[in-house]
């Protein structure tokens, strides 16, 4: 089997109708977060994090970031995908993406890829690839761009 045929992506539901994708090996764990911690002075999409295995994991609400609308879920137990990415210093770092449903692993073939320019504008700067499955286009999130930038830098380009 060739490398090309082994492509796969996790689909992460971020609201009832929208899912985003990350690489197969970028998703490390799925956790229910009982107690999140908020830092002040931040947009609501990135103000939360949580302690996990003695590490502080910053969490992003991608739906809030893209829709500019605050999530209705407040202070309830939330599901999160814990992800790993390589930061700009070349080190592995971790972050989390809040979920609205169970992630699903999807096999993806190279011929399913589509140009980022074909995504909705709001996704184009957050994605480093895109693909189509059953007439639905999915952005593949650029995790470094999301987690290795300050909110001011991310919102300036968004």
């Amino acid at each position: 089997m060739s490398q090309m045929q082994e492509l796969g992506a996790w689909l992460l539901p971020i609201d009832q109708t929208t899912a985003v994708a990350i690489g197969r090996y970028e998703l490390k764990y799925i956790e229910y977060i009982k107690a999140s911690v908020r830092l002040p002075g931040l947009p609501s999409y990135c103000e939360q994090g949580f302690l996990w295995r003695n590490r502080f994991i910053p969490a992003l609400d991608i739906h809030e970031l893209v829709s500019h609308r605050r999530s209705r879920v407040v202070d309830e137990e939330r599901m999160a995908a814990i992800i790993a990415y390589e930061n700009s210093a070349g080190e592995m770092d971790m972050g989390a993406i809040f979920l609205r449903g169970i992630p699903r692993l999807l096999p993806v073939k190279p011929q399913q890829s589509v140009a980022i320019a074909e995504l909705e504008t709001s996704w184009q700067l957050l994605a480093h690839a895109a693909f189509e499955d059953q007439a639905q286009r999915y952005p593949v999130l650029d995790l470094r761009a999301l987690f290795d930038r300050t909110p001011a830098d991310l919102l300036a380009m968004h």
Partner: protein
Amino acid sequence: MPPTINDQSPSLAPPTTPAPERVHLDGGEFGLLLPAADVVTLLPGKLLTVAAETASPLAAQTCGYVEFEQQRYPVFCLNKALQLQSRLETHHRVLVLLRHQQQAFALACSSLNKLDTREYPVYPVPRSMSSRKQPFTSFALIGDTALGLSSAADLLALLQARGVQVRAQAARGALQGAG
């Protein structure tokens, strides 16, 4: 043979300074840990004098002023977004007079308490949660609450980032905002 320098030598190690004693400033919607040495005094919120002038840019950024030992100090109030408010919230019952070198100002809060311990986990603020308008770059986790490790100098930098220039104390000690 020339002497060799061992960079592991204890004599070349940076001097270790003990962690300063810190106090917990409860701002209502946010919390900070401040060096106890930065706190000049605590004053009741009812001593606040609301500035008569309300049209200036400074008036929109301060809640007024407070007098202490015949000096006037501007009073600032921050909300959860760490933006300056022109009025105290009802839970702001305490004015903390803070000093950094020659600059002093008061910050409104719900309470200021001495910490029982100097041992708490401290984490750097992750890049995706950092802002130049936060007066801290690391925070302590006490229970489920994050308390930013801050100081009077950090708060002065935040005021400056918000457009307030707190002047060094003159003979009469008045501090003014450039607006």
